[in-house]
């Protein structure tokens, strides 16, 4: 039996196919959601605790619970009170899921399909696979989360033909995938995303906002409660318009409370959610489809419960999104369905996925030379021929990269490849290197000896090394020393740059808008501009920042009027209005 696992940033789930149906398994308290949190007791002899138990400990014993470890997958460095690699902590979560599944099924579970964000690179995928193996699982497939969600959506529509977008905004990652469903064939046409964008970023913005209004929490437990209150407020404001945040004993014996409105939350979350727009547009462009050609836009991921997220998705795709899928469970169900496909119990479905990132090599000039472009159907392969640039060159080192930027240094370096040459005159040695990306999106590199015709797997040596702890502390200490000076200077510099941009923009915009601006608004804008000029003259950082913020706010409506007018004129030119 193969199980399906959704290893999420915030929580994780496990499922199996039983009697032809995918089902998700619950733990002893009846919960299908296991929080992706691990608590490390101070006593090193005590085993770590995973899930809801770890979250409870976060408030009681702060600083010993690790959450959102998925955001660090595939990166060097160690985290948590026991200085573990991210994949070691992920393995603990997977081990807990395995135990939940085995308890529910009454038999050992040793094979798994594990989901990852579609936009995960090779290092992040490989780390997830290793985490599964460390937890005692044979990882049969690394599956992309939006693709899994599409399987869950399409399972009962196998006869249909349609094009769908899956908009997956989770706790820590965002993915957008465009798929074509053709009578049981689920083919991904394109995918885009951001592996560092999710509900966590909204939480951070809410916490910063609450802190600005309430002041710093007195101690670590108060800080932990502040986080919980921020998350609770975010959740509540998906269904109600105002929410009272109450924090007992926030500063010693002092309790605090305030009211947060949905409009305030949306102002805080707006910049985060707006970052999904560009990804959506790129996915559509890569699929070669206008948004109007889609039949459905499916929302999954916990953050898509927010009305703001639904509005942004509706705006980008020009249609009301489909919220028929359970935001927390669709990916796990899809992983379970893929497990069923691999077991052979769901035969009529075939999944065709793509590689999310271009694979390339660094050229001598430091450019990225793409070998396999993004959105190529996997499994796939591409060859490259290498030759010696100087006589009797013994070997050359090649950097292997993933990413979309032109300069090699701006992309993610997977590692270096050592290619060995036979001695001979310049250009005489020829080594064919084959790059293969398998169904998991994982890369394998083979070198072919042209004389013997044999292939040899080349190891990609990861050049990223753990920065040692002493050095890290040194860096932190150094930055703290100057933090205060830096802060004041930075605030002034940022505010000045913004003022220098805004002041001429105000003059230009007021002239352009003409009578479209009410006299009162005009007066308010001019007053705010005058104060900004005065603050700039005086060189006062705090005053300038306040003035610029006020000017930004005073011109918000004017900006919206100008954008609307540009849009209207454009529609008129195109004869649509």
């Amino acid at each position, binding site marked *: 039996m193969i199980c399906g696992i959704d290893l999420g940033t915030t929580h994780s789930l496990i499922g199996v196919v039983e009697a032809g149906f995918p089902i998700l398994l619950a733990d002893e308290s009846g919960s299908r959601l296991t929080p992706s949190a691990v608590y490390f007791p101070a006593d090193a002899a005590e085993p770590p605790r995973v899930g809801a138990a770890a979250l409870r400990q976060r408030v009681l014993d702060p600083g010993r619970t690790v959450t959102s470890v998925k955001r660090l997958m595939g990166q060097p460095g160690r985290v948590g009170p026991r200085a573990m690699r991210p994949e070691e902590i992920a393995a603990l979560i997977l081990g807990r899921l395995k135990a939940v599944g085995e308890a529910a099924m009454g038999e050992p579970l040793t094979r798994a399909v594990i989901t990852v964000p579609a936009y995960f690179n090779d290092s992040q995928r490989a780390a997830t696979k290793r985490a599964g193996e460390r937890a005692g699982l044979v990882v049969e497939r690394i599956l992309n989360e939006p693709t899994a969600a599409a399987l869950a959506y399409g399972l009962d529509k196998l006869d249909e033909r349609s094009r769908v977008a899956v908009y997956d905004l989770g706790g820590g990652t965002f993915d957008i995938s465009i798929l074509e469903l053709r009578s049981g*064939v689920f083919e991904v046409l394109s995918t885009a995303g951001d592996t560092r964008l999710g509900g966590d970023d909204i939480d951070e913005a809410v916490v910063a906002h609450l802190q600005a209004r309430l002041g710093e929490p007195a101690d670590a437990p108060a800080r932990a409660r502040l986080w919980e209150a921020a998350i609770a407020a975010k959740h509540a404001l998906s269904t109600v318009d105002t929410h009272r945040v109450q924090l007992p004993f926030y500063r010693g014996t002092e309790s605090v409370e305030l009211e947060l409105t949905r409009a305030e939350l949306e102002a805080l979350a707006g910049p985060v959610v707006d970052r999904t727009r560009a990804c959506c*547009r790129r996915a559509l462009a*890569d699929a*070669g489809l206008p948004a109007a050609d889609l039949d459905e836009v499916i929302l999954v991921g916990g953050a898509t419960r927010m009305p703001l997220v639904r509005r942004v998705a509706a705006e980008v795709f020009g249609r009301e999104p489909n919220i028929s899928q359970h935001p927390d469970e669709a990916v796990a169900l899809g992983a379970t369905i893929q497990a069923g496909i691999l077991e052979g119990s769901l035969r009529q479905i*075939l999944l065709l996925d793509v590689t999310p990132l271009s694979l390339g090599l660094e050229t001598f000039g430091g450019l990225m030379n793409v070998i396999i472009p993004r959105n*190529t159907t996997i499994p796939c*392969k591409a060859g490259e021929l290498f030759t010696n640039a100087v006589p009797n060159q013994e070997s050359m080192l090649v950097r292997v990269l993933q990413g979309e930027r032109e300069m090699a240094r701006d992309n993610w370096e997977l590692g270096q490849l050592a290619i060995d040459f036979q001695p001979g005159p310049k250009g005489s040695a020829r080594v064919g290197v084959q790059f293969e990306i398998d169904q998991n999106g994982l890369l394998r590199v083979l070198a072919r000896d042209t004389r013997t015709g044999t292939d040899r797997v080349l190891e990609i040596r990861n050049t990223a090394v753990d920065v040692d702890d002493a050095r890290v502390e040194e860096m932190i200490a150094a930055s703290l020393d100057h933090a205060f000076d830096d802060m004041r200077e930075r605030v002034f510099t940022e505010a000045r740059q913004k003022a220098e941009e805004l002041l001429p923009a105000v003059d230009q*915009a007021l002239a352009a808008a003409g009578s479209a601006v009410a006299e009162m608004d005009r007066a308010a804008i001019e007053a705010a501009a005058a104060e900004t000029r005065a603050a700039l003259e005086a060189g006062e950082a705090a005053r300038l920042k306040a003035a610029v913020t006020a000017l930004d706010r005073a011109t918000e409506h*004017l900006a919206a009027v*100008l954008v609307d007018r540009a849009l209207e004129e454009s529609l008129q030119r195109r004869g649509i209005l």
Partner: protein
Amino acid sequence: MTRLDAFAEMGLPRAPSVDAEALARQFDALSRTRHPDAGGEAAAFARLAEARRLLSSTALRLRHLLELEHPGTRLEGALSPSLMDLFAAVGPALQAAGDLERRRAAATSALARALLAPGQMHAREELERLGAEVADRLEAIDAASRLWDGTAGTLTAWAREAAFLEKWQAQIRDALSRLGL
């Protein structure tokens, strides 16, 4: 590795134009036996997917056919004057869009971004107009190629023009998606 004949691989007749529906049907049917999840070999599926890639793009398909039918033919040559005119319009339009994108990314206030909106709209309209023209020309090549006389010369000219057109098409799509609003 033996040279791939994408038409044979896909079980379709060798021709400059391919019916998209037939291509999708063949690809799906063959995938169901060649994909590793269906018991096939990764290498066999990779070949099939590569064949589809070559056949679904007009430029790649014409070039592939040229290599199969007239190996060693070179694509270099002069572009038709009307294509040169199109090129003269595409280049500046892409540059203007890129310029706007950079200014928009650098702007820190809603007002500064709003002031760029009219320019963005003009850039978008121009790119959409050019995109439509490029698509029309590609379609015209595809339509003409259904009546191919079998000579290398016509095929070469089409392949060359289609290669430029598809490159511009990708650049225009990319620029439009970055332009946003």
